[in-house]
Every structure is written in structure tokens, then in C-alpha cells.
């Protein structure tokens, strides 16, 4: 796909609208791994994620002429994929699901129950599995926000665009999602005596998204760093 000089996402989308039969496929090839990761981590189910991505990208294919360029193309694609995922979660809540009996499922899941699927086998250690399971137990909106901010590394502002909500709402969903995860994972315990307030305990190497960094709301907590 795509001979010669590489076109921007926007150029590819416009080319698709203009009738270029290869442009959309090139655009998809460029972003599908990230879209897939978002879908898989939001839905926790390989087949559901595959269906969601396919539905979303077919929708994007057909609605490309409605893209107004007020956000990056990739943000627009993420938004469609995330919405497709959340739609599926809502449907699944109304109609509980179990795994499909296809061969790949059997191979991948190894008899594991419905819910979160394994990622790359080479990083498939217990902690990752437990965290993935816990993530799957969050409300879908919190999960989607955390997947985008803490796992995929998007800024709060980008995620606000993707989800179509205010930045404060993104922060709240992330914060409450982290709180739930902390509870589910057994991390939320009374701090050791003498630890009056949190300092920078973020040793993850995953810096807080820009929007999550406190802007200094004053008072006697100056010097504390919010990391939840």
C-alpha cells in the first residue's frame, strides 16, 4: 500500500473520500495495532474486540466524509472504536456473554473463563493476568478512560476528545477507576504509621498524564504530588 511519499492521516482520509480505493486501508494499517490494543483492553475479549474494531472501522470507512478535521484523524478513529467497545459492553451487560467455541479461543484461553484474555504470551505473568482481570471488573467508562490514559499513554485532553467528555470527567473516571483497582488488587491499605501524606510514590516509570498533575490548589498540601 502507498507507493511513493507517505501521506498524512488527513490526506489519506481525504483521498479515501475522493475515491482512492487504497487510502483507507493504508490508514487502517497505520493505526490498527493501537486501535486493537484499546479494543482488546477495553473489552477483554478477543472476538468481541475483533468485532468492535471491524464494526468501527467499517463505520469510519462509510462516514469518512463526515470527518470535519476538528481533531486528529487518529483521535477520531479511536473515538469510533471506543464507542463501539462501550456499546458492546452495554449490550453484554444486558445479555451476559460466554466465550465462543472457536478454535482460536480454545488455543488462546486454555480453558480460562469468560472475561479478560491473555496478551502476548511472553509477558503473560501472574501479575499482569490479575491486573487484567481486575481491570475487566471496572465499570466500562472507567475502564476505557484508564486504558487510554494509563495504559495507552494518551493525555487527558486527548482522551477527553476521544470519549467526548470534559477533561475533569476523564480525570474523575481515571481516579475512581484507580481507586477501584487499588481495592480489587488489595493495594488500598492504611498507610504505615508515620506516613502522614503521600509523597511521590509513583515508581512505575509511567508519568502522570499532564492533566492529572495538580495545578496547585493551594492550602497546606503544597509539595504533595497527586498521583491517583
Amino acid at each position, binding site marked *: 500500500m502507498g507507493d511513493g511519499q507517505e501521506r498524512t492521516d488527513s490526506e489519506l482520509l481525504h483521498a479515501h473520500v475522493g475515491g482512492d*480505493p487504497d487510502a483507507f*486501508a493504508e490508514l*487502517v494499517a497505520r493505526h490498527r495495532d493501537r486501535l*486493537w*490494543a484499546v479494543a482488546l*483492553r477495553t473489552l477483554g475479549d478477543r*472476538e468481541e474486540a*475483533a468485532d468492535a*474494531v*471491524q464494526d468501527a*472501522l*467499517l463505520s469510519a470507512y*462509510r*462516514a469518512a*466524509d463526515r470527518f470535519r478535521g476538528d481533531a486528529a484523524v487518529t483521535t477520531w478513529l479511536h473515538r469510533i472504536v471506543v464507542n463501539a467497545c462501550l456499546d458492546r459492553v452495554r*449490550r*453484554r451487560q444486558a*445479555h451476559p*456473554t*460466554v466465550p465462543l*467455541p*472457536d*478454535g*482460536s479461543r480454545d488455543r488462546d484461553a486454555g480453558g480460562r473463563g469468560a472475561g479478560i484474555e491473555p*496478551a*502476548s504470551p511472553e509477558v503473560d505473568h501472574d*501479575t499482569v493476568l490479575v*491486573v487484567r482481570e481486575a*481491570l475487566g471488573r471496572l465499570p466500562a467508562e472507567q475502564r476505557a478512560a484508564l486504558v487510554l490514559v*494509563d*495504559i495507552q499513554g494518551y493525555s487527558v485532553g486527548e482522551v477527553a476528545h476521544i470519549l467526548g467528555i470534559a477533561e*475533569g470527567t476523564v*480525570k*474523575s473516571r481515571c*481516579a*475512581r477507576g*484507580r*481507586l477501584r483497582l*487499588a481495592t480489587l*488488587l488489595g*493495594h*488500598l*491499605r*492504611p*498507610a504505615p504509621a508515620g506516613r*502522614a*501524606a*503521600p509523597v511521590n*510514590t*509513583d*515508581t*512505575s*516509570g*509511567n508519568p502522570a498524564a499532564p*492533566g492529572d498533575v*495538580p*495545578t496547585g*490548589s493551594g492550602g497546606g498540601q503544597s509539595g504533595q504530588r497527586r*498521583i*491517583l
Partner: protein
Amino acid sequence: MTGNEFNGVDLDRLADYVGGALDGTPDAVEIERLVADDPDWRAAYAALGLAAGQVRADLAALGAASEPMPPDIADRLDAALRSAAGAPPPHRRRAGTPVPARGVPPSGPARGGKASGRPASGRPPRRRNAPRRWVRWGSAAAVAVAVLALGGIGANVLRGGGAGDNAASTAGRGAEGDQSAAPAAGQALPGGAQTLPGGAQALASGTDYRPETLAGVVSFAGSGATATRANEGTRQPDFTGPRKTAADSSALASAAPAELRRLINPADQQACLDALGAGSTLYAGYVGPATVQVVDYARFKGEPALVVYFVDGRGVRRVAVAGPRCGEPSAGADVKYATQVG
């Protein structure tokens, strides 16, 4: 939240504060005061900070894991997009401009077959009313046509059945909603296909299906789901399928893989469908009753397989692939693959 250890602390609110969601609001000032003055709030604040560090580390570990789209899913997606590429985006179709004139070259699996098998080709201007009429004569044949056209198998089946372009053109007219072009119930189609009372269809297309071609049907037979939901007359009380007559059984038998001929027998076929229905809890999100649209005595990944397209009680189109032992007491449904296609 449990939060039992933190008496009187609103943990969600505290989490909002810590996460910056309350910045610049009176709530933030109030919580700062609580954290400064109230030992319980202070302890909770400290605990949340520690826990957050661990959670973020955990999530970072997830994020560090490479998660590329698996090749089979990428192939499936490519197939779906190629199928979609055969028809122009809706805004172009609404403009009423024929596809070739818009310079959208046909692409994708369907193009491998005869161009006449594409509903988009030569679309007449009466298209606006077409879907309703297409619905009326039943979606099963439409789905079958879509299956036949997908992956260029239409021509093979049609030639194999000796009816050639006749059925392909029937497909085109059917997609246009030409009710008169629809095969009547009981009318034989190529490949041993039979349109049956109730709209379901049994055929032996000779297709070797792959997961991606099964899934690709959805985008190709776009309006079928709506059609099926509207076609209440075909809904069965349980997981039941086409009833064949003795006359069409011989045509099916001659076209079907030998290993599947047992399943042409009405009792065995019904046993298989019953077994598929009994296993309906295996289909994600499945809600009965199911209405079978197409039963194809075909192959899946090279192996003989009964490919059953059906619509569940919510109007979700699905496909189940069963092996030759489907319906045998010891084999159950012998399901090889199942997925949603719409």
C-alpha cells in the same frame, strides 16, 4: 468501594481530589482542609497515594506488553474493508451516481467472481425503495447470494450447478429489491441450493470458508439483519432450520462433500441443528430463538463442514460451523467455529 478502614471518608470524592478532577473547585478546598485537619482523611489520603503508585505501576506493566493485532484478525479486517471497498461510501451512493462513474474501482474478494454478482453493479435509480422490497421476499436467499459472491465463489458454484449467470443476475436483481427476481419457495438453485418455505435455504456451494470470509459476509450483505428482523414469518420457536423436500435432497447430495451427506437426511440435519441450538450458550451474547437462514454443505479450512447462518432472537446475525459428526450423540454439535457476522 469498601473503604471500611477509613471511617467517614468519602473515598470517591477523595480520589477525585487526588486525581485532579476537583482542581479549582470549592470541593478541592474543602478536601484540603479535611486532609489537613481530620486524621481519618489524612490516613486515607496517604493510603490512596501509596495504592495509586502500585496501580499505576500495574497498568504500566500492561501497557508495556506489546499487543499487535493478530494476523488472523488483521486478515479478517482487511477482507471486510475490501468488501466494503466494492461499494462506495453512503454519501456517494446517496448521490445516486453509479459506482464505476465515481471512479471507485471494484476491489476485494467479491470482485474475484463475476461482476454481475455484485448488487452494486448497474444499480437502477429506484434503489431508495429497494431495501423494503428486498426484505419482503426474505433475507435468506439474499444472504446466500452474498455468501456465494464472497470470495469469488459465486462463479464456481454457479458453473458447477449449471445455471451460470442466471443465478448471478438473480442476485443482482434481488439486491435491487426486484421481488419478481427472487426464487420462489421450493425453486431449485445452482449447487443444489433450495429456497425453502419460510425463506431459509440449503445449498452446497463448494466453498472452502475461512474465518475471515465468514466474517466478511456482514459488510457485503449489509441490510440483511434488518431484513431478517422484519421477516417475522421465518422465526421459529426453537433452533430450527430449513426443511427440505426429497426432490432437492438428491441435488444437495450430489454437490455436497461426501462426509456431509448424512446431514442431508432431514432427521440428521434436524439433530444437528438441535445440537447447535442446545449449545447456544456457547455463542457470546446469544439470545434465542434462532432463525436459520442458510445451511451450506461446504468446507471450513479445507475440512467438510456444515456452515449455518442464522439470526438470533435479538436480530444478531451469526454463523456456526459444524463438523460432519454434528448431531451424533457422542459428538454434540461438533462445532468448529462460531462468530457473529453482524
